[in-house]
């Protein structure tokens, strides 16, 4: 059973690594820490797998673990400036330089900067919805909110993002439905 448990968590890692990585990266904007926290997410999942019930999917369960880690981190420290590379400041070296990825993606860089400025709850719903493509039901499970609260928060977050971009003379932000 122990073997199966380990095998199962490794399978989950292969299936959900990208989703969890993106969520943590865009929430914290720190690649080095991101890799550590992805690791911590799956280690915690392994430790808690016995208590996982099938009421939620594995995906939402893993996201809820990652959410706790991320919020904990945000509370613990004065958050390092998200996506500081947008200001030309080098982040802690990681295996991948996101600056390279953002080269010639000026609008995407701008969008990330605006997401960075959102309060954590807004940032979470925006990322879960528009980047990780979670449904309202899944977001409600991950955040432990009602679906109504998810919809309301998302609406406010998107409005805030739109206003922020409009002020900058940027494009309209559209919510992907």
């Amino acid at each position, binding site marked *: 059973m122990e073997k199966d448990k380990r095998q199962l968590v490794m399978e989950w890692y292969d299936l959900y690594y990208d989703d969890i990585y993106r969520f943590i990266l865009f929430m914290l904007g720190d690649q080095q820490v991101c890799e550590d926290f992805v690791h911590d997410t*799956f280690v915690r999942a392994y430790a808690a797998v016995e208590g996982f019930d099938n009421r939620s999917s594995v995906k939402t369960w893993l996201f809820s673990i990652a959410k706790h880690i991320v919020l904990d981190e945000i509370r613990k420290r004065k958050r390092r400036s998200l996506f500081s590379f947008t200001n030309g400041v080098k982040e802690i070296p*990681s295996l991948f330089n996101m600056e390279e990825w953002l080269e010639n993606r000026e609008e995407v860089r701008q969008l990330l900067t605006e997401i960075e400025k959102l309060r954590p709850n807004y940032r979470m719903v925006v990322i879960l919805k528009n980047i990780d493509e979670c449904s309202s039901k899944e977001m409600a499970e991950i955040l432990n909110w009602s679906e109504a609260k998810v919809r309301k928060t998302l609406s406010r977050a998107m409005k805030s993002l739109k206003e922020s971009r409009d002020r900058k003379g940027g494009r*309209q932000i559209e919510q992907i439905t």
Partner: protein
Amino acid sequence: MSKSHEDWDELKSYAPPEEAKENGRHRLWKSIRNEGEGLKGNKTKNKWRGLITACSSILVCGGLLAVIMNNNLSGQNGGDEGNQPEIQPLDLSQFSWGLEGVYAKKEAEGLVIYKENEEVPVGNARLVSEEEKEEITQSGAMYVDKQLAEFPYPTEMYIEHVKMKDTVLRYHFFIPDHEDWIYFVFDYPKLEYAEIFNLISTLKIQDREPYIHNEPLYVNHGYGIFLYPTDLIPVTVEYDEAVYIWENPSQESFAHYVEKLEASGWSRVPGIGKEITFESSGEIVEISWNDDELVYKYQYTNQEDE
């Protein structure tokens, strides 16, 4: 599509570096293995060994034979031919297989398949119509659709990606049966890859002569690209090492296996000794064969040092 949508799409398409994922996988494995050591103690290999040795094929086959004796065989092949729109339930007596420790129970319209000493079923079997088959194969998230032409019966295999606590992949096998299909389902990891293929490759259906291929059969496990013989039984399967009992070992079979691996695109790494090493796309697999055991050691390039 608006440009704003494109920005979100760009973010959605952002893929973490493969190297980071590989390193993370290695690191995670070490962490959970260390964490697990405290819990499990010193057991797995010998326990499996003992189990396999203790469970003789006579027990399993005997169990199935006993059921055969007790079942009424008369209605198996359709019975009332004038009135046949209803799909007939499967009968236990129709099937046997060479995999030890896995048995079936008759339930409702089909069979429920269990592993010895486990309460949760590992699979099931039933007869389905062409329409039902279509429905099944089109409803799930099927990622692999393959014909297993050299198996005892022409078999269509589908692998479904399942997001459940205890199931990651669901294997669907369809074997034609007149107008219908005999349909087997197995859940991984409730049943290990090698066990699933061992069962299907040794399946016997009553009154239907199985095709016996004149060479060993090989399959991929899950989404992997490495080939494994079908006549394996897992002893220990871990992320970085797997030990299998090889049911039909021989010098000739091993040479054939090595040939097959080379032909499938894996490069053999020159070396001396009993182990044979293959490499492909950053993955290194070392195989050693000892008596009736095949041992696989897996490494990934660019891993962090221990």
